[in-house]
C-alpha cells in the first residue's frame, strides 16, 4: 500500500509501490523510476504480440466483471475503417471501492503508460479518461501529468518518436454512479444522459461515436506495463489459489476495521488474513459480523463465509459472492444490518438512471419497505415481499444496476433474518441504529 500505511510484508506491491511518494507524480520522478521505458519498447512491438501477451497473462478486468482483458482487446477490428477509441473507466463510484483514486493520485504516469500501450495495441489514437466529477484532486493530478506527457513528447502526433498518434484527454463526469457502466459512460462522453445502451451491438463493434471501442478500468490498464515489461509467464505465476485468477489486486478495505486502506495482494489471498493481519483486525472488543468483499453490488458474507473466502474470482464464487471491484466492506457486531442494507438500497434507488421500470420503481419500493421496517411498522409478509421484489430486479433490465440492489437484500435476509424479524416483531435488535 504505502499510503496511508507502510506496505505490509504480506503485500505484493506492483501498482501501489509508489503510493505516498509525491515525486512519482511528476514526469521526471516517473522516468527516474524507470517509467515510460516499457511504452517506448511496446511502440516498436507487433500489436498482436502485445494483445497475446496480455491474454496469456490471464489479466482480468478489475472494474467488476472480471472479463479477460486480452480477449476483449482481440474483439477490436484488426483492419481500421475509421477511428478506434479507448475509454479508461475512472468513474469509481461503487460503494467500498477507492483504489483507482489512489492509482491516479500517486502514479498518474503509470496510468498514462498503460493507456498508451493499450491504445497502440488496439489502434486507438484517442483515449478518454472518464473520471467521476467528485475526484477533484485526482482530476487535477491527471491533467497536470497529461500536460507534462505532452510536453515531453510521450503523447501527441508522434508519441515518443514512434510515428504513431496517441492522444489522451480527461473527461470529467458530473455525479452519476451509472456512468461507470460502460455504455452509459460512452453516452456521457457523447454529451448525453448516462443511460446504458442495449447490447449488442457491443462496444468493440459500435462503441463511442459509433466506432470500435474498448473500455477498461484504471487498475486493469495500470497493470498492462508490468505485463509487457516482465512477460506473461511472470504475471501468470502470481496466483495463490486458482490459475484462472492471476496477478495482484488492490483491495480497498473500509468500514469497521483498525486500518482501512488499499492493500495489494496476489490473487487467491485469504480474506481472513487481509482483515485480521494486514488491516490490524477489528476494533477493540468487537468481532466480525459481516463482510461485502467486492463492492456493494455483491452478496454479503457472514463471518464464517468471510473467514473461509479466498480472494480471487473463483474463491469468491465458492462462498456465494463475487470479487467485483475488490471493495471490501467490513461490519462488526455493532452494525445494524437492516439499517446498513437500507442505506445500500437507498444508494441504488438514488442512482438508478430510471430508464427501466423495474429498476426505477423496484429500488425505491424496496427502500421504502426497509424504512418502514426500521420505523417499527414492518408487517409479517414484508420479508417475502422484499425477496419477491428482488427477484423482479434480477436479470430483467438493460444493465445490472437493479441486480446489484437485489444482492444485499437477498443475501442480507438469508443471513441476518433474525435482525429483520426482530424489527418486525417490534423488538428492536440490540444493534438498532438511532433512526
Amino acid at each position, binding site marked *: 500500500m504505502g499510503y496511508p500505511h507502510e506496505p505490509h510484508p504480506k503485500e505484493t506491491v506492483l501498482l501501489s509501490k509508489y503510493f505516498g511518494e509525491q515525486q512519482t507524480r511528476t514526469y521526471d520522478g516517473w522516468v527516474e523510476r524507470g517509467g515510460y521505458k516499457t511504452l517506448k519498447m511496446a511502440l516498436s512491438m507487433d500489436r498482436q504480440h502485445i494483445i497475446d501477451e496480455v491474454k496469456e497473462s490471464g489479466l482480468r478486468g478489475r472494474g467488476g466483471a472480471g472479463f479477460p482483458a486480452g480477449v476483449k482487446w482481440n474483439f477490436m477490428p484488426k483492419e481500421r475503417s475509421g477511428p478506434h477509441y479507448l475509454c479508461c473507466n475512472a468513474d469509481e463510484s461503487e460503494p467500498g471501492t477507492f483504489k483507482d483514486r489512489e492509482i491516479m493520485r500517486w502514479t498518474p504516469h503509470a496510468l498514462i503508460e498503460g493507456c498508451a500501450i493499450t491504445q497502440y495495441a488496439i489502434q486507438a489514437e484517442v483515449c478518454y479518461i472518464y473520471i467521476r466529477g467528485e475526484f477533484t484532486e485526482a482530476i487535477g493530478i491527471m491533467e497536470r501529468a497529461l500536460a507534462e506527457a505532452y510536453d515531453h513528447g510521450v503523447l501527441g502526433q508522434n508519441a515518443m518518436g514512434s510515428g504513431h498518434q496517441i492522444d489522451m484527454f480527461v473527461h*470529467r463526469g458530473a455525479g452519476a454512479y451509472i456512468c461507470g457502466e460502460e455504455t452509459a459512460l460512452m453516452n456521457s462522453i457523447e454529451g448525453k444522459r448516462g443511460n446504458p445502451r442495449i447490447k449488442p451491438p457491443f462496444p468493440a463493434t459500435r462503441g463511442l461515436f459509433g466506432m470500435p471501442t474498448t473500455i477498461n478500468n484504471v487498475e486493469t490498464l495500470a497493470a498492462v506495463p508490468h505485463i509487457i515489461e516482465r512477460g506473461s509467464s511472470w504475471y501468470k505465476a502470481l496466483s495463490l489459489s486458482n490459475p484462472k485468477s492471476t496477478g495482484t489486486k488492490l483491495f480497498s478495505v473500509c468500514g469497521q476495521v483498525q486500518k482501512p486502506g488499499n492493500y495489494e495482494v496476489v490473487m487467491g489471498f485469504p480474506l481472513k488474513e487481509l482483515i485480521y493481519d494486514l488491516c490490524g483486525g477489528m476494533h477493540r472488543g468487537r468481532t466480525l459480523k459481516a463482510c461485502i468483499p467486492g463492492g456493494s453490488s455483491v452478496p454479503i458474507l457472514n463471518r464464517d463465509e468471510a473467514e473461509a473466502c479466498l480472494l480471487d474470482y473463483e474463491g469468491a464464487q465458492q462462498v456465494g459472492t463475487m470479487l467485483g471491484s475488490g471493495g471490501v466492506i467490513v461490519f462488526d457486531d455493532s452494525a445494524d444490518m437492516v439499517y446498513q442494507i437500507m442505506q445500500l438500497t437507498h444508494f441504488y434507488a438514488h442512482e438508478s438512471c430510471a430508464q427501466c421500470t423495474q429498476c426505477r420503481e423496484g429500488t425505491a419500493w424496496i427502500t421504502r419497505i426497509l424504512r418502514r421496517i426500521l420505523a417499527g411498522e414492518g408487517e409479517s409478509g414484508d420479508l417475502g415481499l422484499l425477496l419477491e421484489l428482488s427477484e423482479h430486479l434480477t436479470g430483467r433490465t438493460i444493465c445490472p444496476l437493479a441486480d446489484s440492489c437485489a444482492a444485499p437484500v437477498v443475501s442480507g435476509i438469508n443471513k441476518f433474518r433474525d435482525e429483520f424479524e426482530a424489527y418486525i416483531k417490534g423488538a428492536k435488535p440490540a444493534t438498532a441504529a438511532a433512526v
Partner: protein
Amino acid sequence: MHQKTEYQPVFTGDQRRKLDEILTRYPNKQAALLPALWMVQDTHGWISQAAMAEVAEVLDLTAAHVEGVATFYTMFHKHPVGEHFIQVCTTSPCNVCGAEDVVAAFLQHTGCDELGATSPDGKFTVLEVECLGACGFATPVLIDDDFIDGVTPDMVPELVARYR
C-alpha cells in the same frame, strides 16, 4: 428561478478560446456538453435556464437536450446554492464509521436549518451525498473543489471557520 440581473454570457474571450480548445478533443460539438456545463457552473456557481440556452447556442444543440442532460447529473446545480457547497458522504461504509455525526456537525456550525438549504448568511449549503470513492478515509467531505479525507465531527468547527 427569477434572475434579477441580466445574464452574463460565459463563452466570450478566454472562456470561448478554452471551449474551442476543448472542442478539438472530440469529433463533434455535442461531446463538449459536460465540459461546457462545468465551465458555466465554475463561472456562475449554478446553471440557469439562460445559461442552458447559451450552451445550446454555442454547441448547436436544442435547449431541451441541454436541459435533459444538465438535470440528469447531480453535481450540476439547477438553483443557486450557498457560496460554499459542502458534500458529506453518508453511504454505508462511511455511515458505520460515523458519517451522520459529521453531517450533524456541519449543519450545526454552518447554521443551515436542513440538508439542501442555504444558511441565512448565504455562505453554506450542506448536502448528504452517495459514496465519494474514498471509503477507507471516512468520512470524506467535498467543500467546493476541495476533497478532504477523514473528517471527524471535532474537525468541523475549524473547517467551517476556514471557509466562512
